[in-house]
């Protein structure tokens, strides 16, 4: 059997929908687009192989919950943006497909906009479909720009990301005795994939600023603690156990100094957000959270290794872009949900955005302070990917919930009027600024 790919009908967003360079000024749609509804599917460790727990089924659940949350009917939706690809391996080609609509990868290892429109009951008035491939961060930026540009008025933004049975990402693993093409320059020394880059980059950071891996422990423990307060997340639903400093310090090495507990755990989950115009948002069930700006970065390393200098340059650049787009400054940001799927990254973003005054080289000192959701520095109140499982979107759920005042036990005690979410990689990603006010 050959692999049956995702439906190719819907196009990826054009490059001009992303704000990828500095100097663009305040976002032209600042405060005119709002996030209102949120819907999550259940969270599982792996797909069990049933249709009921497939990514497609979970995307439908997430979409319907989102509609209900926003108080909107499916017929009111005129746009759908999805991240079509999942993050894990595909289902085929060595596994049997099901009857339609589960007869291709669509609905199993990914969910395209076409698949969603065809399978969520009542989505009869969708005239705008687009993909933001990569991460939810892509799709959110694309959807916000689309609403601002008037391409659609009320949009469902969906990402379903899964984990097939078996070891993660082992199909396609380079395992042969020969290597060819660009991978050669890494594969000969056992470098393929981002993992060793992240470990080596962290060593460079620690050598420059005088720190070490153990000093991440309070940060990671806090992520896992916050994750238990995120009812939508994997750990809160399936493994509600405390995680300790000893658990972290005794974790096995992957690419030292990156350990297993520095890596987020792949899970099976889907989310849907509803974005609409600020005008329409006023009549919906939840309080509008206004989008004040979005920004994108794409770095390319000069040689085979991404240096700390490059990492700092690129992350500072995207922070500058987001501040420029939103017209805000570091002191204006209340809630900060930067990517943490590899916990060895977060210091780059924290320092680039200078949240709570953290400058280059100061993040690990900051990690020793009170980071709890009820404390003065509630860093990543979502718990992030480390605290709730690999999806790369808890940050958005939390930012919206915090600004709506419905984050429950995670609701921060500090002011929650603005929020930043984004990621994933220091070399490239997408970021968004939210606010309780459109002004």
């Amino acid at each position, binding site marked *: 059997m050959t692999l049956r790919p995702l439906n190719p009908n819907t196009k990826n967003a054009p490059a001009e929908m992303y704000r990828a360079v500095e100097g663009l000024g305040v976002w032209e749609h600042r405060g005119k687009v709002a996030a209102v509804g949120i819907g999550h599917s259940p969270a599982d460790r792996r797909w069990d192989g049933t249709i009921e727990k497939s990514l497609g089924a979970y995307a439908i659940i997430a979409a319907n919950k989102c509609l209900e949350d926003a108080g909107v009917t499916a017929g009111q939706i005129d746009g759908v943006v999805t991240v079509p690809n999942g993050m894990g391996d595909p289902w085929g080609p060595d596994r049997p497909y099901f009857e339609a609509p589960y007869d291709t990868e669509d609905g199993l290892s990914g969910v395209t906009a076409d698949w969603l429109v065809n399978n969520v009951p009542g989505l009869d008035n969708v005239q705008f479909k687009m993909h933001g491939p990569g991460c939810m961060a892509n799709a959110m930026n694309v959807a916000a720009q689309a609403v601002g540009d008037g391409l659609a008025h009320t949009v469902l933004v969906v990402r379903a990301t899964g984990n097939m049975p078996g070891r993660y990402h082992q199909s396609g693993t380079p395992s042969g005795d020969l290597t*060819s093409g660009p991978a050669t320059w890494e594969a*000969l020394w056992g470098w393929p994939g981002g993992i060793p880059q992240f*470990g080596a980059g962290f060593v*460079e950071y620690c050598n420059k600023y005088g720190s070490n891996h153990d000093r991440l422990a309070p940060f990671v423990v806090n992520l896992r603690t916050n994750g238990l307060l995120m009812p939508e997340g994997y750990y809160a639903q399936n493994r509600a156990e405390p995680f300790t400093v000893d658990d972290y310090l005794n974790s096995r*090495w992957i690419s030292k100094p990156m350990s297993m507990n520095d890596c987020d755990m792949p899970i099976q989950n889907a989310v849907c957000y509803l974005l609409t115009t600020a005008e329409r948002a006023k009549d919906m069930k939840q309080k509008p959270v206004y989008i004040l700006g979005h920004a994108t970065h794409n770095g390319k390393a000069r040689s085979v290794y991404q240096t700390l200098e490059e990492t700092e340059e690129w992350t500072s650049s995207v922070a500058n872009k987001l501040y420029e787009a939103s017209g805000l400054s570091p002191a204006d940001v209340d809630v900060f949900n930067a990517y943490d799927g590899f916990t060895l990254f977060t210091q780059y973003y924290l320092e680039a955005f200078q949240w709570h005054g953290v400058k280059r080289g100061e993040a690990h000192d900051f990690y020793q302070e009170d980071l709890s959701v009820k404390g003065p520095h509630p860093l990543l109140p979502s718990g992030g990917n480390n605290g709730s499982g690999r999806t790369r979107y808890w940050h958005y759920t939390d930012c919206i919930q915090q600004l709506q005042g419905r984050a429950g036990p995670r609701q921060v005690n500090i002011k929650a009027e603005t929020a930043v979410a984004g990621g994933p990689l220091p070399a490239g990603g997408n970021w968004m600024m939210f606010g309780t006010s459109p002004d």
Partner: protein
Amino acid sequence: MPKPAPTPDELTKPFWDACNERRLVVQYCSTDQRYQYPPAAVCEACGSGSNLTWREVSGRGKIVTYTIMHDARQRTFHADQPFNIAIIELEEDSAIKLFSNLPGTPIDEVPVGASVQLEFEEVHTGQLVPEWRVVN
């Protein structure tokens, strides 16, 4: 440590041929006066391939950073885990980085900042590939 073997192509054959002569050559754009590694068809700075040549370098460098691989994605390396992967910067241009498993250096004893000297390691096809050893 057993490594996979490279498959030279039209672009990379000069690099691998030089390795077999125990020489390290790196692409150099005379227009931009800029080294480039890994090899590419055109200079990434000016976009032209007409002034790209292969230039032999000294084989001296320095360790920038490293990681110790305990769980490699490549099955080829599993038997040798854990192992070093160091990043070496060239003496001629610190922007140019190469990887090394640092033969002769135990794991957890990688001396960041130390000088290293080029050597070559033979893989199963007989091809020589660049490696680096700490200079005592």
